């Protein structure tokens, strides 16, 4: 527990309790599962052939973000410089 400048123990905040963090993550997983299953029950229009794939948007969103982050991480090796790079 962090002590504030007056030396009193600081109050516990919402996410200082690991149970609350777990609850958020559990909610996320539950919503994801629900949305994925819901693909069965909602009629979609198909303008693009890939859209006919079950759960296309879910899969595309997941893959897009993983690709984005991993590619950006690789990009960092190429383009990252020290903070004063332009100053000297």
């Amino acid at each position, binding site marked *: 527990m*962090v002590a*504030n400048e007056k030396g009193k123990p600081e109050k516990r*905040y*919402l*996410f200082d309790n690991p149970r609350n963090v777990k609850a958020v*993550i559990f909610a*996320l*997983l539950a*919503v*994801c599962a629900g*949305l*994925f299953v*819901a*693909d069965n029950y*909602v*009629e*979609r*229009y198909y*303008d*693009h052939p*890939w859209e006919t794939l079950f*759960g*296309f*948007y*879910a*899969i*595309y*969103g*997941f*893959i*897009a*973000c*993983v690709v*984005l*982050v*991993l*590619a*950006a*991480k690789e*990009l*960092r090796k190429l*383009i*990252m*410089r*020290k*903070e004063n*790079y*332009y100053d000297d």
Partner: protein
Amino acid sequence: MTSSIAPFLIFFAGAVLAALTRGWARSVVLLAVPVIGALNLLALNGAEPVTVGMLDYTLTIVRADRLSMLFGYVFHLATFLGFIYALHLKDTTESVASMLYAGSALGVVFAGDMITLFVFWEILAVTSVFLILVRRTERARAAAMRYLLIQVLSGVILLSGILIRVYETGSIAFDFIGWSGFSSSLILLAFGIKCAFPLLHNWLTDAYPEATPTGSVFLSAFTTKVAVYTLARAFPGTEMLVYVGATMTMFPIFYAVIENDLRRVLSYSLINQVGFMVTGIGIGTELALNGAVSHAFVHIIYKSLLFMSMGAVLFRTGKINGSELGGLYKSMPKTTVLCIVGAASISAFPLFSGFVSKSMVMVAALEEGYSVVWLALLFASAGVFHHSGIKIPFFAFFAHDSGIRCKEAPTNMLIAMSLAAFISVFLGVYPWPLYDILPFPVDYKPYTAAHVLTQSQLLFFSALAFYALKLTGLYPPELHGINIDAEWSYRRLLPRAVRGFVRAFQPMDRGLRTAALNAFARLTRYVIRFGGPTGALARTVSAGGMMLWVVVVLALYLILYLA
């Protein structure tokens, strides 16, 4: 009741008043100007164009059609919110510059001819630079100078294009231009610089994060959206813009993921959002153009909200790097919630404003057969949620506790953010007032079960990806450092090249100059030897001697003559 007062006049008059007043009187002026301006704007709706004669030309300083009115409304709204946010400021320069800047943005969108357009285009550049300069740091000063240079360059290119076009067509009217020929290319390039087209975009990511917390709120609202307006007016249906726009949505998200300065993350995401608008303008159908301008409208509000929340963090903590922040939800819970509303809006969550506008562009892309572009836009939609929707709130307010304990944002900032958040949610839930003012009749229903489901799937699974990457430790940490971009060419390559050039030519130059100096010295010595005070030509000789020589010469002449 109709009006014939140009919207910019009210703002410019307000700027004069703001310069003359102090304290609460100035606050009243700053807040009253956008309100009075809005009343005038309502009276302008459908009014006749306002013209003034200048030399041989008739300038149309107000053309109030549906397109310019829409931008007029949102610029007034953004000014009002911006000044509430900046109410604590005592800085005269910044207040006056903000007012002039907003006024010149209005000048551009209501300009009916290209001369008026150019004049306000330049005032826009010059007034906005003060919002960066007033940060009063060396970094900000340097960034401001680079910013000004590029903005003025855009103006010079625009002027060249306009002059050629006026010569070719004989008309100064600012209407549909279309991309064909040299003059239209110049005009398109000038618009493109201000619109942050790829490779021309770094002035934005360079300067906006260096502006003051309040300045960046104003900057985020006007300059690029003025350019979006001019593109929508002059170049709708230009196919090249579809691909330019798609590129703009794609590449900044990679930078945003690894950028540490959170206001720079927002700057990259601004380019990404403008990319959706540019794509819509390029597609050029009624649906696409409605999508582009409605996205501009809602974007101005939620982008202001995001810049406001990060500005509040910077204002209270003095820090803005993701690596130094975290856990601020404990100190700034209200700012946290408001920031999340902005994040949900830019991510286009159902019930938030991005949801009702962005999808128009995406549907139009599919309808017109741009499948690959559509996939790119979908990728970018997931990406924008990732860096603006998750990264910004997560690293500022949650993540690891940085130990920073500060006060909640000032009341005026909270009010401004709350209003922006309210508008974002209101338009997300009830988009019809916005749809009513779009340039074309709207036959689009955002809330279908399929749209809600697919968009929710896209976003929640993006969040799942973030969680999975965090859990596995694959997510890149926030690191100190900068990422080089196209600006490398003029901030590193060009100075280096100039230095290299100087270094290579210095010996040669020195040699040439030494040789020239030596030659000159030799010439001088030669002249002095013969013409100097002791030289042969300046020597004095006695009169008798002279007489003798004259006699000798005459005798020689006589002999030659007689011979």
